[in-house]
């Protein structure tokens, strides 16, 4: 099967500090990858680079997404092509309501596919359906994007947005951080409902906890900007039991 994503020898820096030092990673449709690692290992940098955050500079290597050079695409072009980043710290946008935000996003995606914009009624129906995935109250739609949301509500909002945009490749950056067990279950159920044969997930996390709910096919350990070990889901349990030290020798 065609690769969804192929990262080769990726080096990236922020300011003068090199964070990624030669990442190689291939993702095929239908797969769930987990990337584990300590703070500062480069997990969030990798997700930011994939989404096109211009604070990071790629100095070497390549990323090919569905046969195209991802690094040449703007953040919005990546989104239109099916990439979704679930933010570790979702951004608050005062004054822009959730409904206006997502409606604009959904309709821009439709425009790219030569589809007419959704009517208000069509949008509302779709929104209610996807909000139910993450047990989100429709009243959130009239509030400013993430403004005054609790940590758990913000993460649910990320998964709701993912459901609305139906991505081919979703990268979830520490979606489990700051979540209690109930919120974790809700978020994980939302993700599991969106799994298809033609899409893939990259779940970035410190802990095995989330991986009990979203079961990965492949687990990678990231250390100092490189993937130092790749194995099946049993690797997550090993990390949980022994910590990261043994990979850092």
């Amino acid at each position, binding site marked *: 099967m065609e690769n969804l994503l192929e990262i080769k020898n990726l080096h990236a820096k922020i300011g003068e500090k090199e964070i990624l030092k030669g990442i190689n990673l291939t993702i095929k449709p239908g797969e769930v990858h987990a990337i584990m690692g300590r703070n500062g290992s480069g997990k969030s940098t990798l997700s930011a680079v994939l989404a096109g*955050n211009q604070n990071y500079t790629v100095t070497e290597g390549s990323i090919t997404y569905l046969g195209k050079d991802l690094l040449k695409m703007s953040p*919005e072009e990546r989104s239109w092509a099916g990439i979704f980043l679930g933010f570790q710290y979702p951004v608050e*946008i005062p004054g*822009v309501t959730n409904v206006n*935000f997502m409606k604009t*996003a959904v309709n821009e995606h439709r425009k790219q596919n030569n589809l007419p914009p959704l009517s208000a009624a069509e949008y509302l129906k779709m929104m209610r359906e996807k909000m139910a995935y993450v047990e989100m109250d429709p009243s959130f739609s009239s509030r400013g994007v993430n403004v005054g949301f609790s940590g758990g509500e913000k993460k649910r909002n990320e998964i709701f947005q993912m459901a609305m*945009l139906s991505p081919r490749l979703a990268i979830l950056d520490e979606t489990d951080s700051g979540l209690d067990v109930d919120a974790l279950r809700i978020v994980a159920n939302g993700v599991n409902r969106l799994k298809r044969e033609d899409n893939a997930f990259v779940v970035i996390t410190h802990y095995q906890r989330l991986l009990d709910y979203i079961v990965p096919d492949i687990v990678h350990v990231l250390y100092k900007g490189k993937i130092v070990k790749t194995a099946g889901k049993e690797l997550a349990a090993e990390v949980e039991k022994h910590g990261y030290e043994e990979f850092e020798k």
Partner: protein
Amino acid sequence: MAEFKYIPQSEIFNCSVELSGAKKFYVLDGKPMGFSAKDEVIEIPSEGDLLTQVIFVRTTPHPSSYKVRIFCPAGSSRAVILCAHTTGTDRYVTEESVEIVMEENSNLSLIVMQNENGASSHHSTFEITQKSSSSVSMNIITLHGGNIANRVNCSLNGKRAEVQLSGLYLAGGEQNIDTTVNLRHNSGECTSNQLFKGILGGNARTSFMGEVYVAKDSQKTEAYQANNNLLVSDTARAISDPHLVIYADDVKCSHGSTVGSLADEELFYMRSRGISEPEAKLLQQQAFAGAVLEKISNVEIRERLSRLVERRLRGEDTLCTGCAKRCC
């Protein structure tokens, strides 16, 4: 903010999209049409419960100077919208003074909408005097203009008087928009609340000079003042100078001002969801303007002005939905 081309009205102004529950009047080059001026003062007619809409249009390039008065008798409640327009691209010079008299327990909701060509010069002074328990809500929405100066002098002369002053100015190109507020708490237990916001593009220049004065015996005063400016070009310049002068000791007062540009992390977040960069910026600008537009209590006017603001920010004609003319 996209570069905006103001397209003036080519014939005598006639707003073709009616506001519901409104009675419309015209003032052409300072001369009231179909209603009279007393002692050279244009008295804004009172139409009972109806909204009084007065449309001021400039048609000839001669300088125009006129006086307007809005009188709110004791216990009355009025709603007024004043719109200023130009019919051509000449350099119209307008000097306007608006006297607003608030008797005891009276209530006024006033909207001032300014949409003039880029060569026009329009100076307005609003002189508000308020007696006890009177209440004023005033919004100044400046969509376009060349050289616009709005001065608001408000004196709270009786206890428990309240005033809400807000303004939104959109300045692009070579526009210059100045706002000056002088708010005097001459009596105690009064409340004033000011929110002025500006979005600046091109080489625009704006200034906000605001003073809140609290007299010695004006205890239990509440006075808030904020001015926020959003710069969307590198060459626009906003000056902001709010200040408080307080002689009473039992008061709640605050003021603040900001001049900034769009937040990058908000922009990236929106773009990562597939919202294109221009559309994301527009959403941010609309959100910024929204805080002022929200204060307009008449839903119909609020929605209409919100739409006009959006069109202005997009660089489209500021045309009301359903209107074939090019004025507001």
